[in-house]
């Protein structure tokens, strides 16, 4: 393995690195927003809308991101909707992540014990107050592990963006390999780059989880 080759490739990887972070961030925030909306609709059992969102969730969770991206990138233009590759990537990631986040939040809300709910009802709380003061704060704390797993999952999924030629980390590495055939070096940098993002993040999320569980919040 040549250190020189690695060094020369770093500026290009840097661009890919920033793009991966940028797309991940938008994807995660977007997914969280979609997830919260879906889980609220399901929690309050808003008629019609909850059925519609259930269909979305089923499609989103049961099709691969690769296929979702192909669909957005190749099938949509045929129907007259043209989007840049990056926009396709972001939409695809949010489409996928939204349902995972929804499941994470819903799991938390449903995990709040029936006794807590009854005890809230017993002091006269209405449906909204019960949600606002009892179910959501506790449910959110319960959903943190699932949300943390989703965040890591979504960042890793951005590597699939390479199939629609978004120059993020994986695409950068594959491109360089195609150009110069130095697979060892480039793949090494690629692995290190993902590890730099994911390992610290994973540690931070675990600490956060622990803090929420054993902190002032927990039982």
């Amino acid at each position, binding site marked *: 393995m040549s250190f020189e080759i690695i060094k020369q490739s770093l500026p290009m990887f840097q661009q890919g690195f920033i793009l991966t972070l940028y797309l991940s961030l938008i994807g995660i925030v977007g997914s969280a927003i979609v997830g919260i909306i879906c889980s609220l609709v399901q929690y309050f059992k808003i008629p019609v809308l909850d059925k519609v969102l259930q269909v979305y969730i089923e499609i989103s969770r049961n099709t691969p991101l690769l296929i979702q991206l192909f669909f957005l990138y190749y099938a949509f233009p045929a129907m007259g909707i043209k989007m840049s590759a990056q926009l396709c990537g972001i939409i695809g990631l949010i489409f996928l992540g939204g349902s995972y986040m929804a499941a994470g939040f819903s799991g938390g809300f449903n995990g709040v014990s029936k006794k807590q709910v009854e005890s809230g009802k*017993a002091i*006269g*709380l209405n449906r909204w*107050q019960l949600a606002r003061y009892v179910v959501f704060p*506790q449910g959110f704390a319960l959903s943190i592990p699932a949300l943390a797993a989703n965040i890591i999952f979504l960042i890793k999924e951005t590597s699939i963006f390479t199939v629609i030629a978004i120059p993020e980390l994986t695409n950068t590495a594959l491109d360089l390999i195609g150009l110069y055939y130095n697979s060892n070096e480039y793949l090494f940098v690629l692995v290190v780059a993902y590890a730099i993002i994911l390992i610290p993040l994973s540690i931070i999320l675990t600490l956060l989880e622990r803090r929420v569980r054993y902190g002032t*919040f927990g039982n």
Partner: protein
Amino acid sequence: MANEVLKVEHLEKYYQKKHVLHDINFSISKGEVITLLGPSGSGKSTLIRCLNGLEDFRNGEITFENKKVIPNEKNWQQLRQKIGMVFQSYDLFPNLTVLDNILLGPTKVQKRNVDEVKQEVDELLEKVDLLDYKNVYPRQLSGGQKQRIAIVRALALHPEFMLFDEVTASLDPEMVRGVLNIIQDLADEDDMTMIIVTHEMNFAQQIADRVLFLKDGSILEDTPGKEFFKNPATDQAKEFLQSMNF
């Protein structure tokens, strides 16, 4: 009856096909204390849960302060401000401090003035010897302390009527007395109307104006307190008291 707080007529309750409450009829007057006794599984908890809408029921009628209760969630939500309930497992909200647990009902549901309520809460906490714990979270409290807070939380709504569902059943023995004393004070000093499900026979005997004895979902006896413990009418009640070493 003029000062009747609650009346239950022909109430029936099923869990799917299982018939758990059979034709329940009784009423309770203002200031009266009823203890609901009976072997486990006899439907005591189910019955008092029906009285504040935590269980639905089939047939039958509940009348509260001379008004028939139309059993939907909206009505129950209003009524629960007047019908306080305390549970076996205390169920304080772990995400809120003791003070916020207690303030939630009066300030958010009843929209009362926060400072006024706070002052009242201080007095209530003082009474149950927990004023120092106002700003701690429930997990920092013992079971007995939690249960005393749960009672204060219910009382802060100024209920007219209290339901106690085996409130000492999950407490360590040394904690039981403190909780029972609070309930006794409610009867003695505030003349609170109460229905109490309990397995503490001494306490039941001491506090009950009336005993309802339940077995297999039916009220077998509705007797003045003293009478029930001295001279139970049915064999089932005799057997029950014996099994409780009473």
